[in-house]
């Protein structure tokens, strides 16, 4: 019953509110005046997911408010969509210019394009690998200085007393590194915060996140991640690699940098969203592959996140980019480790090799693995739940950059002091072992020749801790140490994710999982009769890590392959798959994946795989925006400028129509033109009158559109004189004469599929000749002027 109520509440809004505007809540990002143009204009966004999640009471109040015509202010929540985000134009505008250019191109021309695609993919791989290598080396070197300094300090003060000074030293060191990273992110490029995987997911899904693939973002991301890892936060550097790869791809494929104002005049053909998207998916794959040494996993990651746009050749190219990237990283790391040519460092995180005899698994262990998967799902859901509320709190109250920096610094200081306290009070001492040399063994109060085993987990970069949890001998950690470590690290990681620092969640998840997995292994080994070696703690640590990571991020196929490739042991494929499967099923029962939560909280209009299950009763008519703003094929410049600057029609695409007759008859659709195209036309003053007067003037070419891409100027920056306003503009050449259309009665899931599969931004709704009678019914109301109507659905994009 409740479900039905919800449905009614959703659709009934439309009935009562009418064309004044009815309420899908929109987010206004007023904190960023730069975007005020977009915010003040009345585009609309619509989130399909709301259909099932909307709450009746809330909707009613929203309606009351909007009926009074006042914009309502509400606290941020996860059911809003932001005006900040626009759709990418994946659908190629096949106008006459484009067709002419394609026709002019010879067969060799296409071959050259294909070759340059491969070249770009190779470049993407090399550059991504180099960035990964740079991050790795810098983190390693600086972290060494930091830990050596603290270690010496601790050693000195263990003897003479005054360990609280070491604690403060540690906290201050962490604090300062994190401060640098966080200032960079919060003040210069907020979009570089977090792991960047949600943003890339959105980009591949078709949402243009402002500034997400700029060079500046890349620089801040790289510096930020170095600072936060060295700052000892519970973070990893793997997620940001994926973002970095994507930025590299978006930059390289364009052959120019708008930030640096450099144009190499190459790869101009690729300056549009469709081509760029393909390269960005290659870049994301290269990033994954550099981060985990998992080229196949990288390809599958791109497949999983951007699968609606996929073909064989693209897959092969992406695989090429991935391979090149992991090879480059490998090669340069071998140089930095002084054994050039040794290609055994495939990724930033190296799980080490699982090859020992004890690490085989048996059939009877499968149920145990599945149970661990379920635990991982529950813990992951808990993690996501806590992080969800924390993020809401942060968005509502901790939104000023200086507050964000302070918060990050506090987290760094607390992380240091918690770690120190844990190490200080730990009684778990283990003998130094020359084979598994700990990098920074801390003796503290242990007997001489022994080291504090709590310190191997806390007093180290997280990657190293993961590896020691996987590979140290059974008995290296006692259960109490592991239990305490799991609990503290769980909360620290949960608290850290979402701060204004660049940092990934992969490694902390793996670390939490490895700790409790190892705990499970120890427990199982103690259950089994003495002398039995089947429950090797390292193996269970791996399974636990997989379960925890799966429970938090809920990736499936790509994560399985990434983990299998990172362990370098194919036989673990089955248990890892089962574990991830269970973790996802159990976790989804409680809460969504972390990345999805953050996408929602950022109010991104993200399209999922399928239309919501309860949406079949909706038709296009109910979700399309109406009345539509149309342009005539030959339109007065003044009208165009007015339409573009009208704040209430912040559309990005306009149907072009021809009047069939002079009377009230509806006009006929003849094409679709984009806002960006109109702006370029206005800028170049392509007016009918001028064309006649100045014959020598060269014709506008596709190149002019490409040069303006991707940062089209806003309409306000274009000056049109009074005289020019009277001129006419012929849109025939530039509009897309064959836009996709649907009829009004098309069901929502069907429309959804079109949007998702074709990456559409606009879909024109036309009426159906067969149903004239029905349409007549509304003739007096909505479609008063048209019968052959042109209407667009603004589906999820604010602007359309």
């Amino acid at each position, binding site marked *: 019953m409740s479900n*039905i109520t919800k*449905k*009614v509440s959703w*659709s*009934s809004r*439309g*009935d009562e*509110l009418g*064309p004044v*505007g*009815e*309420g*899908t809540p*929109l987010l*206004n990002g*007023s904190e960023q005046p730069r975007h005020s143009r977009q915010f003040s204009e*009345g*585009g*609309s966004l619509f989130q399909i997911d709301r259909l099932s999640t909307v709450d009746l009471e809330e909707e009613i109040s929203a309606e009351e*408010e*909007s009926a009074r015509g006042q*914009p*309502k*202010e*509400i*606290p*941020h929540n996860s059911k809003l969509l932001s005006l900040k985000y626009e759709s990418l134009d994946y659908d190629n505008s096949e106008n006459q210019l484009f067709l002419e250019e394609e026709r002019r191109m010879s067969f060799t021309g296409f071959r050259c394009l294909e070759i340059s695609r491969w070249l770009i993919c190779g470049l993407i791989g090399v550059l991504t690998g180099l960035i990964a290598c740079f991050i790795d080396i810098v983190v390693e070197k600086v972290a060494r200085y930091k830990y050596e300094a603290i270690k010496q300090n601790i050693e000195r003060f263990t003897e003479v*007393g005054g*360990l*609280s000074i070491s604690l403060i030293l540690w*906290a201050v060191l962490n604090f300062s590194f994190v401060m640098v990273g966080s200032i960079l992110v919060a003040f210069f490029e907020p979009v570089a915060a977090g792991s960047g995987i949600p943003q890339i997911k959105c980009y591949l899904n078709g949402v243009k996140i402002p500034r997400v693939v700029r060079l500046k973002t890349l620089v801040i991301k790289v510096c930020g991640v170095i600072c936060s890892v060295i700052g000892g936060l519970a973070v990893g550097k793997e997620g940001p690699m994926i973002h970095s790869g994507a930025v590299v791809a978006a930059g390289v494929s364009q052959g120019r940098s708008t930030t640096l104002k450099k144009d190499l005049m190459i790869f101009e053909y690729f300056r549009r969203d469709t081509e760029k998207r393909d390269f960005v998916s290659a870049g994301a794959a290269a990033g994954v592959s550099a981060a985990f040494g998992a080229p196949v996993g990288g390809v599958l990651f791109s497949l999983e996140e951007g699968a609606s746009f996929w073909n064989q050749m693209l897959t092969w190219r992406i695989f090429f980019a991935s391979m090149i990237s992991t090879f480059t990283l490998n090669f340069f790391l071998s140089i930095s480790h002084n054994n050039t040519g040794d290609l055994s460092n495939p990724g930033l995180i190296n799980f080490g090799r699982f090859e020992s005899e004890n690490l085989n698994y048996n059939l009877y262990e499968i149920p145990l693995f599945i149970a661990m998967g379920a635990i991982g799902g529950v813990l992951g859901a808990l993690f996501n739940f806590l992080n969800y509320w924390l993020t809401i*709190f942060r*968005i509502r109250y*901790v*939104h000023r950059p200086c*507050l964000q920096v302070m*918060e990050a610094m*506090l*987290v760094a*200081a*607390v992380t240091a*002091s*918690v770690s120190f*306290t844990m190490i*200080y009070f730990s009684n778990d001492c283990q003998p130094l072992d020359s084979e598994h040399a700990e990098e920074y063994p801390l003796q503290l*109060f242990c*007997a001489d*020749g*022994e080291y504090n085993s709590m310190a191997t987990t806390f007093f180290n970069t997280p990657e190293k801790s993961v590896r020691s949890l996987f590979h140290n001998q059974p008995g290296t950690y006692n259960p109490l140490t592991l239990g305490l470590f799991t609990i503290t690290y769980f909360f620290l990681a949960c608290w850290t994710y979402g701060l204004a620092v660049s940092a990934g969640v992969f490694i902390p998840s793996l670390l939490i999982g490895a700790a409790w997995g190892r705990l499970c292994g120890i427990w199982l080994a103690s259950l089994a009769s003495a002398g039995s070696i089947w429950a090797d703690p390292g193996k269970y640590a791996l399974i636990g890590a997989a379960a925890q990571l799966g429970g938090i991020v809920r990736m499936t196929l790509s994560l399985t392959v990434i983990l299998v490739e990172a362990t370098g042991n194919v036989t673990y494929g089955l248990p890892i798959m089962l574990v991830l499967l269970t973790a996802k099923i159990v976790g989804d029962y409680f809460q969504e994946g972390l990345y999805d939560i953050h996408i929602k909280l950022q109010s991104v209009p993200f399209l999922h795989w399928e239309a919501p299950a309860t949406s079949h*009763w909706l*038709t296009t*008519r*109910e979700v*399309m925006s109406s009345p539509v703003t149309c342009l005539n094929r030959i339109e007065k410049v003044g009208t165009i400028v007015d339409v573009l600057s009208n704040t209430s029609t912040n559309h990005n695409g306009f149907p072009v129509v021809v009047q069939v007759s002079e009377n009230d008859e509806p006009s006929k659709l003849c094409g679709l033109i984009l806002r960006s195209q109109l702006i370029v036309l206005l800028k170049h003053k392509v007016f009918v009158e001028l064309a006649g007067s100045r014959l020598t003037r060269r014709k506008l070419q596709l190149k002019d559109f490409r040069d303006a891409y991707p940062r089209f100027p806003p309409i306000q920056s274009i000056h049109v004189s009074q005289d020019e306003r009277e001129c006419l503009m012929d849109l025939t050449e530039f509009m897309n004469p064959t836009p996709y259309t649907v009829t009004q009665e098309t069901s929502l899931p069907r429309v959804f599929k079109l949007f998702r599969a074709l990456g559409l931004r606009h879909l024109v709704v036309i009426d159906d000749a067969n149903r004239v009678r029905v349409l007549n*019914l*509304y003739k007096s109301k*909505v479609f008063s002027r048209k019968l052959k109507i042109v*209407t667009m659905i*603004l589906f999820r994009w*604010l602007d359309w």
Partner: protein
Amino acid sequence: MSLRGNCLIFVFFVINICAFVNCDEGTSLDSGDQVRPDSPGLPRVPSSLLVDSFVPLSLMSSFPEDLEISNHCLELLSIFSQRYSDYVKCLVPAARPVRVCTKCYSGYGSLLNAYMNISSDQMGPSNESCRDSLMRSDRLMLVYVLFSNMQDLWEKSNCDFCITEKFQGVNNETTHFMKNLNQTLSCFEKYQQGNHTELCKNCKSSYKGLNELYSSMEKTLCIDVEDAMNMTRILWSKNFNCSMPRGETVAVIAVSSFMLFLPIIFYLSSFLHSEQKKRKLIHPKRMKSYSSLMNIQDKRS
């Protein structure tokens, strides 16, 4: 006993039978892989050695002259055997406390020498290489295996790091360390009776000196030094309980709880004082339609 064990036994059994059959028929087979004249695959027993040690078995007749081993080689072999047993005799008593390097280095040196003589390429008086006849004639390769065991042991104990080259003697660093060690141990002995706090105080300087000396030495050390140091450390930390006490719990707790307290203040104050960020709602234009409600009501009914 597992199934695998049974299988192994069976396999050995089969192999034994085969070997036996080959023995019997070996001489008559002059073609085929097993009995190439240069490296015969069959086990051979030098008859003269047998004469030395036990009564000759009646089944074992001696081999023809050209397959016999020269006296030169037999001599080398007996030298090897002598030195081998000497070395082992030295090793075993040095197992605990570990002194395998400092006590038995000379034994290893002469053993190595004997082995080198056997394995070198040079031809003996009768123009034959003892390496081939002694080491490569059978699949057991006893001489080689025995020696490589000892070599492994030597390498594992890193003895090269405390013995001078050519096995002349213990090197200076190690001697120095051992001297310091003895000082420390005698100090321990002196104060061992009664209260250990006395010991901790009085022997601290010599123990610390030893500890520093140890850590200043090269990264890889021979097992003797390593073991001696380990034992001393265990004595010091476990038996005499002279480790650092955990002295400043209060200070550490105070500082860290202060740190933990900061975020609470931060969040509270930002909750109370920071202005909550509100979002403005903007409504998309949608078609005003009475039909949808009707449709839904139709569907519901």
